[in-house]
Structure formats: C-alpha cells, structure tokens
C-alpha cells in the first residue's frame, strides 16, 4: 500500500448503530483507530480529528458480518472461485470474515494447507478463517491432528459434503474437540439414504421424476450427533445448514438439555421451498435441498424466536459447464455471499417482521459465538475494526452479471430486493463501497 493512502483512523459519523452484543440500537458515531474500535459515542460527541470520515447518515452501522460457511474452492478448483474472487464477493455482501470449507482438491486436512490458506499471496480482501477437515482426506476413517490444526489457526473441523457417518469416529471427534474446545461441524446427511437423489423428497420430486432426499436423512444424523454431544463433556457440535423441521426439534432438545449445540441456516432455505424449482433449473439444486414449505416455516419460526445461532450462506460456486447439464448430474450448490443480507432484510425483516437487531445478531454476534471469534461480532471499544454499513431501505435488483464471484450459479438473478451494503470495513480499512 502506498504511503499517501495509509490511513490510521476512520470516523463513521451520523449512522444508526446496531450492535446486539453490546445491546446498542441507537444513533452513534464510531471511531476506528489502528485496526481497533477506539470509541463509540452519541452523535457528535467524539472529540479530536480522524484521518478520514465516513458519512453514514440514514444508514445502519453494524459489526462486520461473519459467514460461517463458504466454499472458496482453493486449493485446486480455481475455475469455480479463488480466495481473491470469493472474498471480493464477500466484501460486496458485507462480510468482513468468512470461514472456508476444507472440501477442496486436495482436502485441507494438514497444517501446511491451513498455513497456505492464510498467506497474503492468496489475495483475500476480508478475513479468512480456515475450517480443517475432521478426518484425513475427509474419508471418515481417521481423525486429523486437531491440536496442531487449531494451533496454526483452524477454527473448527468438518468433513462438509461428506458427513461423518461412523458413530465411533463422530464420538471420537466430539471427545477430542471437547478437550480442545474445538467445534465439530457436521453436514448432516445420511448418505446411505440419499444415493442418486437430487432434491427434497416430496410431491414435487415425485412429479418431476427425481429421487428425493428425505427429511429423515438429515434428522437422523442430527439426532445422533445431538445425543452424542449431550453425553460427551464439553463437546461442541455445530450443525451446518440445518434445513428440516425434524432436525430442528433435535437441536432444540439439545439446547434445552444444555448441550453445546449451535447451528446455522442459509438464506435460500428460509426464502425458497422445493416447489419453487421450475423446469429442472439446476440453480435450485443444492445440498441440503430446498425443503417443504412447512420445513421453511419451522426455520422462520426458529429465526424469530432466537433459536437459530447464525445465518450462513453455504456459498458454493460452480462453473456453467458443471451446472448446465442434466439436473441429476448437475453439481450441488449456489452462490450466496452477495444476496444474503438483502434476502434477510426482504424476507425476515420486511415480510416476517423480525427485528433488525435480531437479523444483525445472526450475521455478527451469533456466528462469532459459534466459533469463538474473539474481538469480532461486536463493536465495543477494543474490538477488531470490522464494520458493515448498509442501507436497510434501499431497493435494488440483483444482477448476477455484475457479481464479483467467479461463478454465476444463483436462483436469485433478477430478484428485486431490499437492503444493500454501502461499505465493508476490514481492520479499519474500507474494502468495499457500493
């Protein structure tokens, strides 16, 4: 960075601060200095100058958003996405931190790959936290070296996309994770029940002649994992992209039973249902699949009542040639970083009347708690200077042609949405302004 562009302090003035962890929902100015939050005060009360000012009048100022679940495809699948393009899309979506999944080529299951991901040459423009594989090559047989992976900065372990089916391996993972205070993230799907399936099992899949994944294939694994977590001291289970009402019941039971169980839901699961898919459009194909309307309603209720810990995108970019094929052969997954906030504001805030502070919590303090991201998820003095500034009233149309991701696989192209990111600030520096 050239010296004349070096800034050490930034004053965000005139905005409305929503910081659920600090119980603040009021007009406030925020001063960022040397990569930290230096001061939060009532409007015009911050004395002294700042190298730069940001006019946030009419805008919401929030702690930087954290996405617990993204696929940035490095190492190995750079035709889909890179850390540089994926984090640019993250910045455009207001995310200052993303947690990358290890199902890459090769699988991120070693200290070397965690360190490689953290190198500045990768060109990441937001914070990247690596989630390591829970078993070697994610084959589900032998645990990776949790302690070593944690030491070099991995924040959790998972075999995302290839669930840990073996009861003993899952137990071992939760035991070791418990000893290290290390979350084990599970993509809950009993793959023995979902062979050749490409959408949710229901009236729609029957009509379309597609084999369906039953809700039970998710719920049975979640139930087992919750049971394990309830009986293993200090075990930390994080359920990725929970999508069914039945799995939700297990998680609720676990939480009531004081198990350390957290979970995330995705914007597409609270927005769409299986019946929205038309004409075999593979941009509606992801795993877990879009579920029934009643599953979606159960998730919306859990978002409103405070049960859900985090909104995560499961941003899963794929090239056109991997999607424009027979539906059953198309890759699972959709992009999501640039539409997450707008879908949350449009669906949850405007339609379902969920308070804005709750929505901000699901993007900030909630995910920070799931993976213990210290100093993030709130803007109390001394926190990391990661800030997301957005306009909660701005109407706009999502044009996938303008996406900063390398891929275009989204069902939301052309959607009219409300709520737009205006600035994304990472470590006190503006990395995106819209």
């Amino acid at each position, binding site marked *: 960075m050239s010296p004349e562009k070096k800034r050490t302090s930034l004053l965000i003035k005139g905005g409305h601060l929503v910081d659920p962890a600090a119980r603040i929902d009021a007009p406030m100015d925020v001063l960022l200095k040397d990569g930290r939050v230096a001061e939060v005060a009532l409007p015009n009360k911050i004395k002294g100058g700042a190298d730069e000012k940001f006019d946030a009048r009419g805008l919401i100022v929030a702690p930087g958003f954290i996405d617990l679940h993204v696929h940035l495809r490095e190492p190995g699948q750079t035709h889909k996405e890179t850390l540089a393009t994926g984090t640019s899309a993250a910045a455009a979506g207001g995310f200052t931190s993303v947690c990358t999944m290890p199902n890459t080529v090769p699988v991120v299951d070693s200290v070397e790959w965690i360190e490689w991901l953290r190198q500045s040459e990768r060109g990441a423009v937001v914070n990247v936290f690596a989630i390591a594989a829970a078993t070697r090559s994610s084959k589900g047989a032998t645990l990776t070296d949790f302690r070593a992976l944690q030491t070099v900065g991995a924040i959790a372990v998972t075999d995302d996309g290839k669930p840990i089916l073996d009861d003993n391996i899952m137990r071992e993972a939760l035991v070791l994770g418990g000893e290290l205070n290390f979350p084990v993230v599970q993509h809950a799907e009993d793959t023995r029940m979902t062979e050749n399936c490409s959408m949710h099992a229901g009236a729609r899949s029957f009509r379309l*002649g*597609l084999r369906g994944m039953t809700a039970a294939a998710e719920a049975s694994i979640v139930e087992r994992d919750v049971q394990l977590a309830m009986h293993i001291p200090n075990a930390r289970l994080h359920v990725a992209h929970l999508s069914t009402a039945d799995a939700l019941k297990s998680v609720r039971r676990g939480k009531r039973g004081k198990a350390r169980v957290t979970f995330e839901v995705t914007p597409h699961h609270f927005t769409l249902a299986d019946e929205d898919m038309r004409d*075999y459009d593979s941009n509606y194909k992801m795993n877990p699949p879009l579920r029934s309307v009643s599953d979606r309603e159960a998730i919306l209720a859990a978002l409103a009542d405070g049960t859900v810990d985090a909104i995560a995108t499961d941003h899963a970019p794929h090239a056109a040639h991997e999607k424009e094929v*027979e539906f059953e052969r198309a890759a699972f997954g959709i992009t999501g970083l640039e539409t997450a906030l707008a879908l949350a504001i449009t669906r949850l805030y405007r339609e379902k009347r969920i308070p804005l502070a709750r929505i901000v919590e699901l993007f900030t303090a909630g995910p920070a708690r799931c993976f213990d991201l210290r100093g993030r998820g709130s803007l109390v003095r001394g926190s990391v200077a990661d800030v997301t500034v957005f306009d909660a009233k701005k109407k706009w149309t999502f044009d996938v042609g303008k996406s900063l991701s390398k891929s275009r696989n989204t069902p939301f192209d052309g959607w009219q949405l409300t709520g737009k990111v205006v600035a994304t600030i990472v470590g006190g520096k503006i990395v995106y302004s819209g």
Partner: protein
Amino acid sequence: MNPARGSLLGIEHLEAAEILKLLKFARRMNPDKPRPLLKGKRVFLLFYEASTRTRSSFETAAKVMGAHTVLIQSFGSSIEKGESLLDTGYTVRAVGADVIVIRHPNAGAPYVMAQHIDVPVINAGDGLHEHPSQALLDAYTILRNKKTFKGLQIAIVGDIFHSRVARSACHLLSKFGVKIILCGPPELVPDIATTLAPGVRVTRHIEDALRGTDVVMLLRVQTERLSGLKIDLAEYIARYQMNPARLKMAKRDAMVMHPGPIIRGLELTSEIADGAQARILEEVHNGVPTRMAILARAIGRMR
C-alpha cells in the same frame, strides 16, 4: 430460452384442447399411405437409453412422412467419449437438425436441451419423469376402443414410482376427467402419487382397483431402476399379477394395456398378454400415427 414452438416436453403443461387436436390429427395419419409432410426435413433421434418400440416407431413415423432420420445412440458416438448433453445438442443443430427426438435416463434432460437449442425437442421418455408420446398413443388407443373418455375408470397396476408412462398417463387422463386408480405396494406406489393430478387415488388391493374399471394398464417392475429398493417378486406376483381370475373383477369389456416390454409370468400371465381383452400390440401399432402427428406438429404442419 423458451423451448422452440412445436416442442413436446411433457403432458403436464399441455392443454386438453391441444391434446385433442393431436389425437384428431393422428387419426388422419395412415402409415400405409405416406404423406410427405416432413419431406426434406432432418429428424435426429438421440437415444441415451435402450428402446425398441419408441425408437422404431418414431423412426418409421418420420420416414413415412418423407424425413431423413439420423440415429445417435450413446454407445458408438461422442457421448461415449464424455461429450455433454448440450454439446451434443449444439453439434446436432449445426449438422442441420429440424427436429430432435430425445430419450434419456435423466429426468428433465429434454428441458435442458430445449432451453438452449432453438430446434423443436420431442421428449421420447426422460428418466422417471414423462413419456408424452406413449400417453398420447395410449389415449388414442383408449378412444378407438371406448369412443369417449367420459365416465371412464382406469386402474394402473404396478411400478408407478419408476414409471414415466404412469406419470404422463395420469396427467393426460386427468385432464379429461377419467377416474384413475393406482395400485401396488407402497414402495412402488407411494401415497404422494395422489398429488400428481386431480382424480388420482391409490389403493393396495387389486380387487379395489379393478372393480368397475374400464381400462387396466399394467406396468413392468423396473428392476434396473430399483436403486437398492428390495421388492419381493414372489409376493408381488401373489398380490398384483394380472391373471384371468382377477381380470374378471373388472368390467366385462375392460381392455388391458401395457406400454411394454412385458414380462410374462411377472406383472401378467400369458393368458392375459395373449387374451382377447389385451390391446398391447394395438398400442404399438397406434404409436406410428400418433408420432406422425407429433412430428407434424413439431414442424408446424399439423393442420
């Protein structure tokens, strides 16, 4: 991109009037009196899956109408080398296809083709989804035997879950108010099947399905598609196989249909397959005029 005019991707979204128009036109088609409506046209038959009846019937229909036909099968073509569905489609388009007839093991494959290639696409059976030309020729056969759909009741017995024939038949017959009873064990006839179309009912009892029925459609148990599902064939035979004693429970003039291939001794006995009430070969025969109408419609000559 919207599918090209004249495409036939499924019965579900076809209007009743359009179906009647097709059936009426098919009645005017006579395979023994060639009408060169497709003279000089190129009809490409893309068969990604085995087929006897449908393929030979489409090919005959096209040739009788004066078209050139080109058959591409996954075995012995670039498909075998890993060429994608769309790349094969673009290639066929570049060669000069006027109509693409496609049979594919994956549901929705004809949709993918039709959304990207501006040539009429005819679905000749896609995975478990639809088999529109079969439903049309079955409707044609029913009308030849029963004169009208009014007041009819049909029992479809067998492997509904894996059957694109059943799905297309339900969509078509439902549009004309036919009472449809699906019969078989839960693994093959899930309760959710009743959501397919209005007027569809599910029963586990063959007597219940046959009582008062005008049309009995039998389906093969598609053992190759079971995908881990275990079916006790002996029990299936005991409960659902069509034999003369069972057929007596249906109306006296009930007709027996089967889209083929038939497996004697499994879903039906030889007495049924060769019996006076069977219309199985008539269905095959009617496939040609029906597909002539479908091809004429594809190139805008169904007038």
